[in-house]
């Protein structure tokens, strides 16, 4: 077998078994992003707290999970914790590891987003008697979120690829199922060509989503003034819908 068979690669691409692995990869990514964002938001709030114990704990968390490889974290959760009597299913192990790890990165992104919103915005909100919740929800959060989108996009792109590490603890996602096919048929290049194509498709789709998000949340920037004028009625409609 000294040649590369494109037909075999295409066949692997449309292999039902591999496609199900792609779905698991997508599921892991989405769950880790959602879980990581919720946890990361909480850690970011602790990190920004004026209480030194709370901010110290958050800092310790971020230091630990960003300072150790995800691979070790996954292996410890999967094979190490049972030694202490703590046992999860394979999928739960992968999710716990990915979420804990992703949260540390997202916490720093969330925090930098909030810190980049100028103090004047909060002062204006105070001066207008806005409640702390309205100030957060309507003034600081939307502005911070806009600043978070580019680094958030990078982080999610990395996460998507990092889910392949879950193959090591036998989660049958795209990477693991590629390995399984490869071991069965020994068409190494053909199988991994199909897997590579799937990863490229997934990251490209995410790129496109990210670009749309940036465009949507950047609608008020002066550089796009002409388009915004043209869209004014749409904006108006969304204002009404919100009320």
């Amino acid at each position: 077998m000294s040649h590369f068979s494109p037909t075999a690669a295409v066949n692997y691409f449309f292999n039902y078994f591999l496609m199900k692995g792609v779905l698991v990869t997508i599921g892991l990514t989405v769950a880790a992003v959602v879980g990581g964002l919720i946890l990361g938001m909480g850690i970011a709030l602790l990190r920004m707290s004026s209480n030194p114990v709370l901010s110290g704990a958050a800092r310790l968390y971020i230091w630990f999970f960003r300072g150790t490889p995800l691979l070790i974290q996954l292996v410890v959760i999967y094979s190490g914790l049972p030694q202490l009597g703590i046992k999860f299913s394979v999928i739960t192990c992968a999710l716990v590891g990915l979420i804990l790890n992703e949260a540390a990165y997202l916490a720093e992104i969330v925090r930098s987003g909030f810190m980049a919103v100028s103090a004047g915005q909060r002062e204006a909100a105070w001066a207008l008697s806005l409640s702390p919740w309205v100030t957060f929800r309507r003034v600081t959060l939307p502005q911070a979120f806009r600043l978070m989108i580019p680094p958030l996009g990078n982080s999610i792109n990395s996460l998507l690829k990092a889910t392949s590490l879950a193959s090591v603890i036998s989660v049958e996602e795209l990477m693991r199922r590629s390995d399984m096919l490869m071991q069965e048929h020994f068409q190494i290049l053909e199988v991994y060509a199909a897997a590579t194509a799937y990863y490229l498709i997934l990251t490209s789709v995410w790129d496109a989503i990210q670009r749309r998000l940036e465009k949507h949340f950047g609608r008020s920037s002066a550089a796009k003034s002409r388009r915004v004028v043209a869209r004014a009625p749409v904006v108006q409609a969304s204002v009404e819908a919100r009320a």
Partner: protein
Amino acid sequence: MSEMSMNTAGGVEGATAQPQLREVPAVRMEAVYKHYGDFTALNEVDLKVAKGEKIVVCGPSGSGKSTLIRCINHIEKHDEGLIYVNGIELDNQRKNIDAVRRDTGMVFQSFNLFPHMTVLENCTLAPMTANGMSEAEAKDLAMHFLTKVRIPDQAEKFPGQLSGGQQQRVAIARALCMRPKIMLFDEPTSALDPEMVKEVLETMKKLAEEGITMLCVTHEMGFAREVADRIVFMNEGKVVEQAAPQEFFSNPKSERARTFLDQIIH
């Protein structure tokens, strides 16, 4: 004008500790201190502002002018001394701070409009969320004040699409939508291109004619001469001199005020 009477009722309720409402000054500061580390921004400041009075606060940079008016709505927290606004003491109680902020509107040097909201949304957010006004009412109110500052046609634009002068006029309208009794201006024209200064000052003059209490930190001495009832001159955190504009400009008492005027009036 139901929201107006609501607002007044709120003010009266907050001030019931003071029996003679008419004599309660808009602002009363007694021996107020404010420190930033080793730096004393306000050094034993006493100030009384009557209702309806127009005050211009001036002085060299770093003299504490901005800190002074930022303490009045508790954007900056004073360290010592007493501050009463419409008879409500600023004593760190949330409810008093809220009551004072409802009575005061503030205009900032850098406008501080919310960049992700349209001009109209900027103006309706506080009336709707803090005063529970319906969207239709809030829009009417916003359009009323946007018309007053002469930019009703920009209501659907975002702040970034407006000139500095227009943005500052929106900021004035936004503050007015909360129907404040006292307006605080913190160097409202300092960040503007020269040709935009006039439109903002004209707007402020019009506002002054309507009897609202105004405290304004500004270097615009023409405006001070024309509009102010009293000039408060500050230096190194102290109120050095207070006088009617005519007297202040023609015959400043302190040496510091004299050198200051020499420097800024060319």
